[in-house]
């Protein structure tokens, strides 16, 4: 790997020194190994969670509860990890939606590290996963786990109803988002983003063609 993505921490010193934002080199790191591992472990966890919750609904019955709450705890840890990593080690402004992003709708200017569509997809997943995690942690009170005594009377029936509605909403929203996310990742013109999420890099030419190189 020749260099890091323009606005990642590793490049800020270079930028401050007035050097080229994108140093010479064919391959530019778009996603660090730890972020790629996070993405794929989260994807696997999501499939386990959606499979264990939705397959029984469509008639494929099996003992799904244990696998579901274990995967749910893993997802909770992954979300916490991602929040800490994005707040401490990453640049939040790379994913934040700015008014200038709306210019992309007319084709100009080119986006920073993430396109407007990618930012909106990330925020939609944020809503779904945070809702699922918060309500899922509450629902742990309904199942017997090695570290928690089951207490289904922790909340009133009315409150449980609201928790279930929100958890179901997060599930259905996740189904829609996963379908859209997989479709866009497989489009030929978006192939470089899929490669970046697998191998970590995009070429300098791809960066120049599709992004402004500032990373913001």
């Amino acid at each position: 790997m020749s260099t890091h993505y323009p606005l990642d921490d590793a490049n800020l010193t270079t930028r401050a020194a007035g050097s080229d934002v994108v140093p010479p080199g064919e391959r530019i790191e778009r996603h660090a190994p730890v972020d790629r591992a996070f993405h794929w472990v989260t994807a696997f966890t999501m499939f386990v969670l959606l499979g264990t919750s939705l397959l029984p609904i469509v008639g494929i019955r099996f003992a799904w509860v244990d696998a579901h709450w274990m995967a749910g705890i893993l997802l909770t840890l992954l979300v916490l990890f991602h929040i800490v990593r994005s707040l401490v080690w990453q640049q939040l402004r790379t994913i934040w939606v700015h008014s200038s992003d709306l210019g992309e709708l007319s084709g100009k200017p080119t986006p920073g590290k993430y396109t407007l569509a990618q930012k909106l997809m990330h925020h939609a997943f944020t809503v779904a996963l945070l809702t699922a995690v918060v309500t899922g942690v509450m629902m742990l009170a309904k199942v017997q786990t090695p570290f928690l005594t089951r207490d289904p009377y922790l909340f009133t029936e009315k409150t449980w109803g609201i928790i279930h509605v929100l958890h179901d909403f997060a599930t259905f929203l996740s189904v829609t988002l996963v379908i859209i996310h997989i479709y866009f990742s497989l489009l030929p013109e978006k192939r470089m983003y899929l490669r970046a999420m697998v191998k970590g890099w995009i070429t300098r030419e791809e960066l120049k063609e599709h992004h402004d190189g500032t990373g913001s």
Partner: protein
Amino acid sequence: MDIFRHGHDAWGQHVIDGLSWSLLDVAVGVGLAVIAIHFIFRAFSRKRRN
């Protein structure tokens, strides 16, 4: 189409159990609709460019 799943508590009072499972079809349908709309839009914009 129902939006909620309904049930009764230990005292026989009506409670909401969650969202209706039939909304799963809607979730899948919305995802497929976005794909279809984008696919058509993509095909037209490519045709216009060529």
